[in-house]
């Protein structure tokens, strides 16, 4: 109560001071001045700052590339990924050129034509020719980009089973992934979450003759050079299967099956031996080493050194542990893959136990 009264008194005091200030202001009479309007000195200072600012933007870009150029994803590890990277690079060069030029013009004009007393602005209200030029140039450039992009997109999304892809189901649930291989018949058994029961965690329809040879695992192994057709399913909320190194992503939607296909081109081992990854991993391990020193000082365990692995991430907000919904992907030779898959228990075997 006392605290409340004190607060009240302070507020009332504040109001009183404010009102007195107002009274004084009124009694002083109103002086009108234009000192809050920019004068030549302001124009000059801010004009120069505009020039400085465009340089700041350029320097910032250069510093970012120089310092963090290495955090970007390594070269694509899938066939279509190379096309995406190519298109990305072309678009990137284009927007950088346009960006550098337009930012320069904008800020340079702001600097060059900064106001001075007596300077006369040019009354220049329109010019059909100019406007036509800068309408038609974007039209042509964008038409090129659109056509290139659409061809790439159509090729990526043209999913068919003509070239006998390996069929794998990616099954998402809060907060983990499962992969279901189609087994010897390369056909997935029907499934629905209504059939989830006991060990049948993915709700596979056991009466479907395609089901028994299905293989459910929690680590994704892919043979290099063979097209993989992913069928995505979700058990509860929206998830998104994001495999950044393969330039692959598709949402997992409850109630429907979505799909995405790609051909991995580099095995995990090859990736680990590539210069880009060696450098990146070395850099990461340096950071981890430094962090470990702090952890050890606190009496906690040191961080383990990192080795590169492909990963599957969830990329659609799905709940509290969204940030740690991941699965390891291993790309290996056909023989290694065959050996691995032969060791895995089929659904029939799992359910028998």
């Amino acid at each position, binding site marked *: 109560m006392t605290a409340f009264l004190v607060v009240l008194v302070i507020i009332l005091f504040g109001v009183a001071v404010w009102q007195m200030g107002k009274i004084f202001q009124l009694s002083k009479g109103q002086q009108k001045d234009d000192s809050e309007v920019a004068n030549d000195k302001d124009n000059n*200072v801010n004009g120069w700052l505009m020039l400085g600012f465009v340089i700041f933007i350029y320097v910032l870009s250069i510093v970012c590339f120089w310092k963090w150029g290495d955090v970007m994803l390594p070269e694509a590890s899938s066939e279509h990924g190379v096309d995406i990277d190519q298109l990305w690079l072309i678009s990137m060069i284009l927007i950088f050129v346009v960006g550098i030029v337009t930012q320069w013009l904008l800020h340079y004009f702001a600097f060059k034509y900064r106001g001075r007393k007596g300077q006369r602005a040019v009354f220049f209200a329109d010019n059909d020719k100019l406007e036509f030029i800068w309408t038609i140039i974007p039209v042509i450039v964008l038409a090129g980009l659109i056509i290139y992009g659409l061809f790439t997109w159509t090729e990526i999304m043209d999913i068919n089973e003509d070239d006998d892809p390996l069929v794998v189901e990616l099954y998402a649930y809060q907060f983990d992934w499962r992969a279901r291989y189609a087994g010897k018949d390369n056909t997935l058994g029907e499934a629905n979450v209504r059939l989830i029961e006991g060990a049948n965690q993915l709700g596979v329809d056991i009466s479907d003759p395609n089901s028994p040879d299905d293989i459910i695992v929690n680590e994704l192994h892919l043979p290099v050079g063979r097209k993989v057709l992913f069928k995505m399913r979700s058990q509860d909320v929206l998830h998104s299967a994001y495999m950044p190194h393969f330039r692959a992503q598709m949402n997992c939607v409850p109630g429907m099956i979505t799909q995405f296909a790609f051909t991995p081109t580099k095995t995990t081992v090859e990736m680990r031996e590539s210069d880009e990854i060696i450098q990146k991993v070395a850099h990461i391990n340096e950071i981890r080493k430094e962090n470990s020193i702090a952890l050890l000082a606190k009496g906690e365990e040191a961080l383990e050194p990192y080795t590169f692995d492909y990963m599957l991430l969830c990329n659609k907000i799905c709940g509290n542990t969204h940030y740690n919904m991941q699965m390891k992907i291993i790309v290996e030779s056909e023989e290694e893959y065959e050996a691995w898959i032969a060791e895995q228990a089929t659904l029939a075997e799992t359910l028998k136990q």
Partner: protein
Amino acid sequence: MSAHAHDLAVDHHDDHGHHHKETFITKYIFSQDHKMISKQYLITGLFMGIIGIAMSLLFRMQLAWPDKEFTIYEVLLGKWGEGGVMDPSVYLALVTIHGTIMVFFVLTAGLSGTFSNLLIPLQIGARDMASGFLNMISYWLFFLSSVIMVISLFVEAGPASAGWTIYPPLSALPQAIPGSGAGMTLWLVSMAIFIASSLLGSLNYIVTVLNLRTKGMSMTRLPLTIWAFFITAIIGVVSFPVLLSAALLLIMDRSFGTSFFLSDIYIAGEVLHNQGGSPVLFEHLFWFLGHPEVYIVLLPALGITSEIIATNSRKPIFGYRAMVASILAIAFLSTIVWGHHMFISGMNPFLGSVFTFTTLLIAIPSAVKAFNYITTLWKGNLQMNPAMLFSIGLVSTFITGGLTGILLGDSALDINVHDTYFVVAHFHLVMGISALYGLFAGVYHWFPKMFEGRMMNKNLGYIHFWITAIGAYGVFFPMHFIGMAGLPRRYYTNTEFPYFDDLTDVNVVITIFAFVAAAAQVIFLYNFISSMFFGKKGPKNPWNSNTLEWTAEVKHIHGNWDGPIPHVYRWAYDYSKLNKDETDYVIPGQDFAPQTEPLQDGEEEMNH
């Protein structure tokens, strides 16, 4: 039509001589005067903005220093920040509410609500909005929705935390995330009221612009601000109802057991009965508003900028007709590009192709606008007022953010950066920062109109701009790199992945810039509040502007003009126009010819 409008306005004027005595309540609270309502919108919007920005600082701290303990979490977040460790659920709540508040409450209501209300009647020469009463209702519904949104922060299980896009099933099932309980209900109720408010406001703006223009104010003489507000209102009327239906269907799914968006779900150990619905349908409905929303936010900012750049360049805006045509083209295209948010949602890939096509088309009118702004600066006599700086800043961030849109709008490229920080960086620059700059530009420029001649301190304005400009690029430029590294957004921390360990220092840099930029907003707030009371009174038309609002009385009176409403004889952009023999300006010694100035002898009207 304008002649007719004029008659109406005159009638209005006649009975305005004997108006009622205003009480505190009718003047400051339940005011029907558009100038007061605009101030109410602005101050409510700024208040919500403080909450929204403060939230972003909290989660930026978490992202930069995920292992550190900050007592501030415990102070502000209570049980979700116990021991100075931020709970993952409150992280998601913070990003969700930050997005909602900034997009709807600050940049839709705070920007478009404020300046549509202030400028539409003043710049078209009307005594008030078509319906002052609806206008008042519109504000109070907005206020109510803000209150409900703020209340939702204090719900026991936490506020909505399914992201500002509230995709079901996550937003529909409290079992999926605690925030989808009472917090989500309040979010939906708040948004439903917000939409009602926005619709009432928009209808009012449309009717006012169409019917209440003063004599001589043809559509082609309208300042670009009014064109922008007018078209924005139309987009709002077209698209907001779709969000309302999406919200209503979601409410039914949540509370009445329907299955519009839900199907085949097994959660918390049981199968739900829902069948046949589709979450993708919700995405379509949401983005049918969601994408036009980007332009609802951005067009008013571009309109404000057009006006301010022309005035402060002392030059006509370059290509008036092209600017209007771009606004129309953007408005039309904005309603048919929503699918570019859904390239990988599982919808038919053919649709992806169509949306890529329409999306990249929208770059054309945007490019035209950017070039026209730059040309307007060319050979001008630029008056570097704070509003001008923010307008130039807007063009800069609009270009930078817009260019990355060319990458994201390409469905093939979107596959790998969809929902990563690349997207976050893109839309913050192109719509967040740009629209905020538009808001600031508008506040600095029209502050004297809002607060009876008082002007904001220009030096504080300069400091505000330069720190903000550096901070904004410092935050969002490096953010593209985290996106290109493949880091998904809405991750509470990325330390679970050693692969992303090298992003830590980028995150630290971003957070430091964010704090610097936020500190500059404190300067703005101080400047705003102190200028409200102690700002110097400037001349009646401080920026030597052509538009009608500067002919209105400085003191706020009901009806805006003490005498008859002004007539208009020319467009709004006769800056530095020379007389026939090019010896002097059309009005000797004055480089601007206000719209109320009749054409001089031998002067040709701009056939823009």
